[in-house]
């Protein structure tokens, strides 16, 4: 009898990790959630605050998000002050000291990625410029890998017993995105150097990765809606430089960019800046790029 009891106890101990409760991870945007799922697999339970089809600068800090944050083991943020307008009041009320900045349960992924457009001089006459650099860095597949690496390191730190599992999944993700990237680059190769205009300055990393040349913006300054005079100047610029496409996020008003496209012969392309940006075709990071590359190639042909 004693032997049976001992065996049961040993079995329970061995089986315990298998039944461990998944780490509760909350991310500010869906892209981080997608990459966390890639690395964390079934050992994480991931939720995102912002939806992929909303502007991540302007999320309402609703109390319902506090329910997510209250029980989180890990909070992943983009950083570079992308979430400054809404995350601090949520954290103040989250009642979860384990996910506050500087704690083990807080991961700012901007610390390990390539950042573009870091201004040396900045003030608000320049519009809503991010003083620490452009926060839309996740739109570069190499940065996606850098983010995934940081996630893997953080998950391993929080769950050392699962570290080999996370490492194996990270490697699998690297191989998967590497293969996908070869296809994306091959599809975009004929259009390297193509001149484009974007609505907001959301695409510098994406443009760099695919060799696109962003020559102007529909917004006269970041966060400022298009004005007639700026629109007129932009039309002239686009005609002079033979710009073939205007890239726009789905949450901006298409009226002005559509009008510019009609007057310049350029095509207006809706590109999705985040996982979940469209009802279908943007379910995870790789499908997001599949869709964006396909849309862009179609427009540039």
């Amino acid at each position, binding site marked *: 009898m004693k032997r049976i009891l001992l065996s049961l106890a040993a079995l329970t101990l061995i089986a315990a990790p298998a039944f461990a409760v998944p780490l509760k991870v909350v991310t500010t945007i869906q892209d981080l959630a997608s990459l966390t799922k890639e690395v964390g697999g079934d050992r994480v339970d991931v939720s995102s605050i912002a*939806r992929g*089809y*909303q*502007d991540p600068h*302007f999320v*309402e*800090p*609703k*109390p*319902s998000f*506090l*329910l997510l944050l*209250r029980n989180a083991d890990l909070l992943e943020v983009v950083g570079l002050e992308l979430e*400054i*307008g*809404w995350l*601090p*009041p949520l*954290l*103040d*009320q989250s*009642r979860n000291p384990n996910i*506050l900045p500087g704690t083990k349960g807080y991961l700012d992924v*901007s*610390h*390990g990625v*390539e*950042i*573009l457009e870091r201004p040396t001089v900045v003030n*608000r006459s320049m519009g*809503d410029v991010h003083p*620490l650099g452009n926060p839309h860095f996740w739109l570069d*597949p*190499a940065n*996606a*890998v*850098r983010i995934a*690496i*940081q996630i893997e390191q953080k998950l391993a730190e929080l769950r050392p017993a699962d570290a080999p599992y996370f490492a194996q999944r990270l490697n699998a993700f*690297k*191989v998967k995105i*590497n293969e996908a*990237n*070869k296809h994306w*680059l091959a599809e975009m*190769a*004929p259009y*390297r*150097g193509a*001149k484009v205009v974007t609505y907001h300055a959301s695409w510098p990393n994406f443009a760099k*990765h695919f*060799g696109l*040349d962003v020559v102007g913006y529909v917004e006269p300054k970041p*966060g*400022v*809606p298009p004005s007639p005079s700026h629109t007129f100047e932009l039309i002239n610029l686009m005609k002079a430089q033979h710009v073939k496409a205007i890239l726009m996020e*789905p*949450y*901006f*008003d298409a009226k002005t960019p559509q009008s510019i496209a009609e007057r310049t012969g350029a095509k207006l392309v809706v590109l999705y800046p985040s996982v979940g940006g469209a009802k279908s075709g943007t379910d995870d990071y790789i499908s997001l790029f599949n869709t964006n590359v396909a849309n862009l190639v179609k427009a540039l042909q």
Partner: protein
Amino acid sequence: MAHRGHRALFPILFFAALPAFAQTTDDRVSQLEKRLDALTQEVAQIRQEIDRLKGTPAPAPAAAAEDLTKVEVAPPAAAQPAPASQPSSALTDVQTVNNVFNPAASKVFNPDTSVIGNFIGKAGPANPYEFGPNDERSPFKLDEAEIAFQAFVDPYAKANFFFSVSPEGIDVEEGYAQFVTLPWGLTAKAGKFKALFGKANTWHTHVRPWVDQPLVIHNFFGDEQFHGEGISVSKAIPVTAAFVEATGELYSSELPGVFERRKASDVAWNTHLKAFKDISENSNIELGMSWARGTIADGHNAFGGVDVTYRWKPLQQGLYRGVVGRFEGMVDKRDDFDRRLRGFYASLDYQLAQRWFTGVRLDSADETPSLAQVAPGTRDRGVSATLTFWPSEFSQIRGQLRRTKYGDVKTANELLLQLQFAIGAHGAHAF
């Protein structure tokens, strides 16, 4: 004999040296190949740069597929930000970058500092009913500059200071420590702050969707709202269907016209229960109940209130459209007055475009004995319409037309104009 011995050594040495020579040649060839690759890449980059400078589209590169499987994290102790990495041959080689964000390290402990100016213009006759018999409000006035300092004190608390600088002087509008790492789902505040009684009472001037206060706040609590020095403790109540929060607050019973301290130990208390529920991804509702009680010269003064807020904001079109409907009803029972005093406001605000908002508000509030403009118990009624333009997130211009009937006979029509402008880093307020 000796010669024969030397001759025998030569072939041995020759054959022994052959692999070493072959090895050295292979190494050199390998090094030269690498060097050639590097030079080829440099030439390609220079060619691209020349094309870019010439303004001619760069030709498609020679299959520069990065190997993402080689991406890695950079060592964490680098003193300077790593340079932008060149595309490697595979994404599998990618490394993370060690970004240093702190070029002005000596300033990092400075609190977030901001100033928000509130410039008011008005047109219309003097309004002695609400602003006293000598209403001398000038056509233009820098009504207030709110100066805010906010920062973490230590790992346990944040400090929030809001100073109101106005023609009347400088006042600590709020100044409190906020404890954000308490156990058992608690948060707490200690210092001077606005009471969590309903919604409008908690707002700073720049958060209000109107130029003025609703009549019920003005008549029941005065222009400075229900505030005081004390402590506040909130607890999240674990309910899966909604976010529910209970708050209890204790103040020194001192608020001109509202609470009076008869003895040193007199306190006023306030309780608030809030429930928030997402109806859908685009809409939500918030319900609140408040109950407060404090001392006055002839007994006690007690307030009860309910508030309802409905919001609709389609996520994808959130930059351009939105509706907020609000209602707050309050009851005031004073021991120095023979009946309950009542008041409410109801408002609807609609976002017309990215930077344009409009709204209406209905007001009704009894005048209280200590703050009465006409006579205690007399009911004031008002209606307002607003139009707001936001040049940017940091400034807004608002016009408000309001018609107020004080008591049964006296009516004032006013046009209020407001320009608010903010500089510095002002932390977002709670939802």
